[in-house]
Structures are given as structure tokens and as C-alpha cells.
């Protein structure tokens, strides 16, 4: 018989090892899943994890890694701050949408003027939109102790309706022959979030994501506020005694994650996506939750986790094209990853101990 015994200290070794274990377990279980669906498991796994990086058409797919990874990392960094302190912002998808709407609206308001200041203004508007949307659950939590999980999530559905309303009404392209969707910002140089280095996939959003990683690292390791966040998550009672201000913490964590999600939305709408449309949002806000956990809520971990998750997106699309693997299989795969991660995380805080049956 085995018995669980709580470790006096969380294991450092397993903290690094568990994400890898989870990935391996997911690959194995995913392979089984693909086999049941009637695909060659090895071929499917290779198409998803190997071909986008080293396959024949890798030159096309490698930049996509940054394009898809950028928003995931940006959102996940913001979420991880709150998750560490036990503040659960589940509505990043909504903040992402509202950020995109606000940013695009500012850009479109200036159309067709060309000026250097338009894009920076859009960035500010996008950040503000996401921040303001996240302030709703934050203020309600601070003032009325309303559950931020439910409120932020409900606001995702509200934001989706707002998006539909915008792309059919206020922001609809007047020259679009009645089709829903805004003007394409790709045709508007002052508002277009172009690649910084052509062909690399590196646009301003990706750069912002990298900067966010660095700032989050400094915040959590070198700054008093970061210490308060960690303390609140790891020892709530100690935090109470050491004058951590919970109101400020809630406002900061939710506001920051909303701001970053809003930025991600703005960079997406002004770059890879190009326009506000009904199906603009693709679930980055929810996948970022998996990214945050997979990165163990650590900035550097999130960087790698974001790139890995981007890989499954790209590989999934490839497998869809070449093997006919259903798109939902990848979604399932990502969900499975989170399951395994949470399960093997047990080994960080507990150890298995062998016990012999003996008379008590």
C-alpha cells in the first residue's frame, strides 16, 4: 500500500519536472485518443510537435509560433499574477475582445488620416478597454464581495454580444457592401501593427509579451507588491497580519490582467486578424489559463508554455490539413494537458510513502 505524505517543503525538483511529466502523459493519452479515432498516433504526434518546427514547410510555420504565442503569453502573464494571489480572472477572453474593440475604434475614427501618433493612441485605448472591462469584477469584488469568477465570466458573453453589435453596426465597414465586419486595418498603414522584422512573425504585440515577461519577473522577485501577491497566495493569514492591503491587490491583479488582455486584443486586431468581425475571438483568453498553469505561474515558465501551446495550435492546424484530424481534437488535447498537469502536481507537495500493514 502507498500512502500520501505531505512534504515539509514543496519539492523543487518536481516543480520543474511536473510540467514535463504532464506533457509526456498528454502525448501518450493523446496518442491513444488519435488511435481510437483511427489515425496513426506516431504520425499525428509528429505532425503536431515536430513538423511545424523542423518539417518541410517549417519556414512558413515558425513565424506563426510567435504570432500565436504572443497573445497567449501576454494574457497568461497577467492572469498568473492574480492566480498566485487567489484572485481568479476567468474573463480574459472578454477583456481581450473589449480591448480590440476600443483600440480598433480609435484607429478607425482617424481613418483615412495618416499620422505617427495613431497607433500609439490605439495601444493606449486597447489597454484602457481591457483594464476597464476587468475593473467591473474588481470593483464589484472590492465593494460588494461579489465572486469575481462568475462576474468576469458572465462579462465574456456580454463582450461577445458587444462584438457582434459592433461588427454589424457602429464599426461596420461603410464600403463593405453590407458584409459584417470593420475596415481591414492592414490597408491602413498608420493603424497597422506590422511585423518589426519582415517574415519573422515578430510584431509589436510579441515584443510587448516579452517585455511583460521581464517586468513580471522583476515584479515578483524584486518588488514589494510582487512579494505581497506571493504572500497572499501562499500564506493568506500571514498576509493579513503583515499589512497587505487586499483591496489594492484585487484592483491591481484584475486591472493588470485586463490591461494585458486588452493589449493582446488590440495587437491581434491591428495585426494578424486585421479587422473587427463577429468571429474575431478564437479562445486565446481561455487557452491562456492553461498556459498560465502549465508555466507554473512563473513568468519564464509561461514564456515556454505559451510557445508550446502555440505549437499545438499550429500543429493542430497542420494535422487538420494533412491527416484530417478534427479541430476539436486539439482542443481536447489542450484540456487533457491541464488535467494531467493538475494531477501530477500532487507530487510537488506530497510524496508517496510505502506503508506496511501493521496492528495499530
Amino acid at each position: 500500500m502507498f500512502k500520501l505524505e505531505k512534504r515539509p517543503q514543496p519539492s523543487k525538483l518536481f516543480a520543474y519536472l511536473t510540467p514535463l511529466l504532464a506533457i509526456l502523459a498528454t502525448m501518450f493519452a493523446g496518442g491513444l485518443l488519435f488511435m481510437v479515432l483511427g489515425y496513426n498516433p506516431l504520425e499525428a504526434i509528429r505532425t503536431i510537435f515536430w513538423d511545424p518546427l523542423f518539417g518541410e514547410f517549417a519556414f512558413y510555420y515558425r513565424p506563426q509560433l510567435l504570432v500565436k504565442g504572443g497573445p497567449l503569453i501576454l494574457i497568461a502573464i497577467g492572469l498568473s499574477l492574480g492566480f498566485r494571489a487567489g484572485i481568479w480572472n476567468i474573463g480574459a477572453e472578454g477583456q481581450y475582445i473589449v480591448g480590440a474593440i476600443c483600440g480598433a475604434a480609435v484607429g478607425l475614427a482617424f481613418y483615412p488620416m495618416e499620422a505617427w501618433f495613431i497607433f500609439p493612441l490605439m495601444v493606449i485605448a486597447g489597454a484602457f478597454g481591457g483594464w476597464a472591462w476587468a475593473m467591473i469584477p474588481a470593483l464589484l469584488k472590492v465593494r460588494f464581495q461579489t465572486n469575481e469568477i462568475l462576474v468576469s465570466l458572465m462579462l465574456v458573453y456580454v463582450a461577445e454580444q458587444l462584438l457582434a453589435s459592433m461588427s454589424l453596426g457602429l464599426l461596420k465597414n461603410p464600403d463593405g457592401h453590407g458584409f459584417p465586419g470593420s475596415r481591414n486595418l492592414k490597408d491602413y498603414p498608420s493603424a497597422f501593427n506590422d511585423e518589426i522584422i519582415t517574415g519573422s512573425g515578430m510584431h509589436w504585440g510579441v515584443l510587448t509579451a516579452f517585455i511583460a515577461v521581464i517586468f513580471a519577473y522583476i515584479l515578483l522577485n524584486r518588488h514589494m507588491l510582487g512579494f505581497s501577491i506571493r504572500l497572499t497566495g501562499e500564506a493568506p493569514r500571514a498576509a493579513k497580519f503583515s499589512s497587505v492591503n487586499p483591496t489594492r491587490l484585487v484592483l491591481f491583479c484584475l486591472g493588470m490582467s485586463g490591461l494585458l488582455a486588452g493589449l493582446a486584443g488590440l495587437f491581434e486586431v491591428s495585426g494578424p486578424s486585421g479587422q473587427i468581425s463577429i468571429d474575431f475571438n478564437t479562445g486565446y483568453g481561455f487557452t491562456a489559463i492553461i498556459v498560465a498553469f502549465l508555466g507554473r505561474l512563473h513568468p519564464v515558465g509561461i514564456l515556454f508554455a505559451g510557445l508550446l501551446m502555440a505549437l499545438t495550435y499550429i500543429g493542430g492546424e497542420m494535422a487538420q490539413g494533412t491527416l484530417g484530424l478534427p479541430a476539436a481534437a486539439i482542443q481536447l488535447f489542450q484540456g487533457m494537458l491541464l488535467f494531467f498537469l493538475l494531477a501530477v502536481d500532487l507530487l510537488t507537495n506530497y510524496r508517496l510513502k510505502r506503508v506496511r500493514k501493521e496492528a495499530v
Partner: protein
Amino acid sequence: MDLSAINPALLLASLLVAATPILLAGIGELVVERAGVLNLGVEGMMITGAICGFMMTIITGSPALGFVFAALGGAALSLLFAILTQYALANQVASGLALTLFGLGLSSMLGQEYVGLKPPSTPKLDIPLLSDIPFLGTVLFNHDIIVYIGIALVAAVWATLKYTRVGLILRAVGENHDAAHALGYKVVRIRVLAIMFGGACAGLGGAYFSLIRVPQWTEGMTAGAGWIALALVVFASWKPWRVLLGAWLFGGVTVLQLNFQAAGVAIPVEYLSMSPYIITIVVLVIMSADKSRAPASLGRIFHASS
């Protein structure tokens, strides 16, 4: 705009129908939370129930079998959550989210070949005499059996929690799991059973969407109903009858906004569609002033050390 086209009897009747899925999922989640477990995976279990029930009904042609299978599907999925939180001692919030993400993926994968099909309709329970009463007959006595099962379930949960030994043990586990453990109750086993009951109820609620309310299969068709069910439990301050009241309130808002859409009210459709979610937030704010009713061990991890 022609509001006189809205028939109050039909409105109230469809209110009962619209309330049923969140009522089922809500009463299931209430039991789970009274046992001290916060399962945020209701949305995932509902959508899984929706597709499981739909598949079974298409294959066998029997909605009854479909509903049974939906409950089994929801319970099976919730078992994953139970293993994660009760045996692997994982964080309940994160595990619940994982369950929802996984359930959404699983359902759209299972449902690929079922898009656009039409299930055999579930017969209405035409109660003779009673359903002929003007107004009341249409409102109360002309529904499918699931509507009544939902209400009966609320009564059963209420009576069980209040008057039976099982209910007392369940509540003890939810209020103070250490004390319950010291008294010799199997905390983990009781919680696993409660979680599975919640899963089965959510599955039934989901199948109500795909088999009766819509009736069709589309990806993500529950559209946040699972989350509204979670809000319902908070709204109800963890009391069974209030879940019924809340479900009717939300059902009423849903039906009313649909009727407004049909009647061509001057508010854009998108803003009307937002209203159930916004009302949920408003109600949450009003109700969250009083937290004292929440089970004391809600969301806390139990590990019997030595």
C-alpha cells in the same frame, strides 16, 4: 413593435421550459457545494450531457434513453473532477476550469457527425382534465416530463438535506470535514458521490437543451448556462427552494428577451441577448452581501493526515 402579440399563458409556460436546464444543473451543484466542493465544471458537464443524450437519442430513437445516457455522461465526466480534487488533491477552481475546457472540446469532437440532425421529439405529458383548464392548463400541465422531474428533484433534495440522516452527514462533511472525519464518516467517498450526483444533474440539464429546448446539436450550445447555474446556487444562498425561484427568474428574463426580439422591440438584438448575463451579475451583487450561508468547508482541500 407589437407587444400585444405576446401571450401571457404561453410566456409563463415557456418560462418553465427555459428554467428547467439551469434548474437541474443548479440543484445538482447545490448538493455538491453543500458537501463542501466547488465544481466550476458545470458548463463542461452540461455540454457533455447535451451531446451524450443527443447521440443516444439519434441512435436508439428514444429520448428517454437519451436522458439516461446524458446523466451517465455528465456523471462520468464529473468523476474526472472527483479524482483530481479528492484523490490528487488538486485546486478545485483550476480543476473545474479544466473540466469545462475539456468538456467543450470533448463534446464538439463527439458531435461532429451530429450537426444538423433532428432528434425525435419528446412527448408532452398531456394530463387529461388538468391540461384543459384555461390558462393554468397551458402554463402548468402541458409540459414534458423533465420539467416536472426538475421540480420534484428540488423537493427531494430539500427533504433529504433537511430530514434525513444522509442529508445531515452531507451537510456535516460540507461544514467541517475534519470533524466529520473524526466522527468516522468517509469524507472523500461522500464527496465523490455528491460530485457525481451534480454531474448527472448537469448532464440532464444539458440534454434538455439538445433534445427539447433547441432541439438540435450545435457546438457550445449551452452558451454559459452552466455558469448561470453556478450563480444560481450563490443566489439561492445554498437553499434548494430558492434555486427554483432563481431558475424561474432567469428563465423569465431569457423568455422575455426572446419575446422582445420576436416582437421587434427597438433595442438591438445583441443588447437583448446580453440581458440574462447582465441580470445574473446584478443579482450576484445583490446577493453577495450575505456570505454567511456558504458551507464552511467550501473549496477547501481535505487530506486525512495520519
